[in-house]
């Protein structure tokens, strides 16, 4: 992300209504490698492909802000790998992490990993360190420390069904698990910030937050997100494209000031539920419109969405969730140009 884009992002988070509205997308391995003509595994394992694919996106869509920007990731495997989870790879598939804990009782033996040494985490840092000179020479900086959120990591370590059941059957053990994970996340964020002093944002992704109601979010989500977001940075960015209604009123209490959410909810609903305290990034249907629609479909949906919105402060126009696999160039350009035209 270059300085201008970062300043735009900060302006949005601070409540400015910009004209035209900015557009932005979370881009990562589900979309970027295939769009650029590479397999997902090549993207993960070849630093040149990783860098060139990111630069290609920037050159093709210069008006868009890509978040978090040069995201050094290994899909959902990144953080679970530090806990000893086996990562499952396919040539062109989303990687997956196998469970580590066979029962809630095994939480007692879980230890906090060292983000500087364990799993894939040193690879995450080293990849960016190797590429940092070229990234900065092109006028960009690493702006975000990135991680999956505490409930997401817990669901990979235990299994989603098992984790969500154990919230009810073994709450004390689940608190212990989330505490270990959050201690690790605080360390992992600090490690990334030490490695890249240009970082002034934290980006956490946690769809599992959307699976629980308000009371469970207050108990098992909010305190851990508060700690994970506790570092002194300007942008605290959260992704949850599962249902958000239960957690939305509490996100600012977690320190979150930017949210990318899913298509279950409208921008107007999210503004109301967050009391307009959290900047929003959304909300064109990713699969049905941005990926599978025509440019005309995209134009129509974007125009309709923006016409219906009275308060355009705290908004980055995007799709719901991250950039969907298969979203074609012409559709993305249609979104960007329509926003520019309708909101200038």
């Amino acid at each position, binding site marked *: 992300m270059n300085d201008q884009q970062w300043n735009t992002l900060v302006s949005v988070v601070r409540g400015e209504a910009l004209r035209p509205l900015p557009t932005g997308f979370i881009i990562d391995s589900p979309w970027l490698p295939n769009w650029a003509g590479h397999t997902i595994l090549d993207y993960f394992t070849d630093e040149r492909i990783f860098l060139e694919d990111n630069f290609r996106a920037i050159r093709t869509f210069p008006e868009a802000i890509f978040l978090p920007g040069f995201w050094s990731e290994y899909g959902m495997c990144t953080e679970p790998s530090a806990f000893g989870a086996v990562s499952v790879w396919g040539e062109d598939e989303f990687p997956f992490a196998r469970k580590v804990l066979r029962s809630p009782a095994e939480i007692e033996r879980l230890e906090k990993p060292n983000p500087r040494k364990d799993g894939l985490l040193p690879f995450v840092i080293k990849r960016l360190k190797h590429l940092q000179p070229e990234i900065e020479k092109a006028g960009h900086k690493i702006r975000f420390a990135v991680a999956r959120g505490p409930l997401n990591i817990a669901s990979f370590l235990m299994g989603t069904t098992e984790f969500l059941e154990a919230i*009810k*059957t073994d709450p004390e053990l689940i608190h212990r698990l989330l505490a270990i994970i959050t201690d690790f996340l605080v360390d992992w964020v600090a490690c990334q910030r030490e490695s890249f002093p240009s970082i002034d944002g934290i980006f956490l992704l946690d769809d599992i937050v959307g699976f*629980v109601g308000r009371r469970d979010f207050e108990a098992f989500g909010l305190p851990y997100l508060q700690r994970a977001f506790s570092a002194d940075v300007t942008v605290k960015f959260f992704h949850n494209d599962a249902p958000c209604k239960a957690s939305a009123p509490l996100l600012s209490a977690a320190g979150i000031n930017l949210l990318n959410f899913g298509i279950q909810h409208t921008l107007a609903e999210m503004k109301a539920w967050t009391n307009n305290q959290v900047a929003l990034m959304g909300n064109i249907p990713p699969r049905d419109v941005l990926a599978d629609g025509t440019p005309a479909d995209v134009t129509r949906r974007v125009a309709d969405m923006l016409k219906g919105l009275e308060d355009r402060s705290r908004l980055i126009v995007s799709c719901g969730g991250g950039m969907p696999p298969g979203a074609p160039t012409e559709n993305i350009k249609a979104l960007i140009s329509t926003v520019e035209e309708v909101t200038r």
Partner: protein
Amino acid sequence: MHDLSSLRQAVLVGDAAAAVSAARKALDDGIQPVDLISEGISPAMAEMGRLFEEGDCFVPELLMSARATKQIFQILRPLLAQTGVKSRGHVVLGTVQGDLHDIGKNLVAAMLEGGGFEVTDLGVDVPPEKFIAAVQNKQARIVGLSALLTTTMPAMKTTIDAFNAAGIRGRIKIMVGGAPVTQSYAEAIGADGYAENAAASVDLARRLAGT
């Protein structure tokens, strides 16, 4: 007339011990197992489904209710077998090959069982041949395919094509679901139905079973 209100309440709040206790009492009082399902479990799970669709209960609550019904069914299954009572239908369920997500499938399994269906849950990462074998072994008439990733969705079509190639596609109904799946996708791949969520899967299964 048997009073199953305490059983229904126990299922609603996910109290497995109380649900099993209430079931045993009702059986001791002479209720037929099939009536315990239709008057006790099914209405309770239907209510959970309604609450879930309206955003008044969430996945952990649904899982706890499912857990309670599962434990009741452990008592009921042998009794149902003895009485020769048939379920609404047999559903073979699984997450398609290459996909290890199970939460959606698990919720669907729970709702279908609560709705009076017999369910064979094949788990995750299920290749087409395993679906076919299960259908043939269990004489199932409905297959449920779950996928949570856009990269694994194509395995739904692969599985449907495999049923065609095996010559048994015409004997079964295939329903699909999962976060990236849509009605139009279901139609495009030749599925017989799409369920937007676990609660909707019961109505869909009933329609497909003709019950």
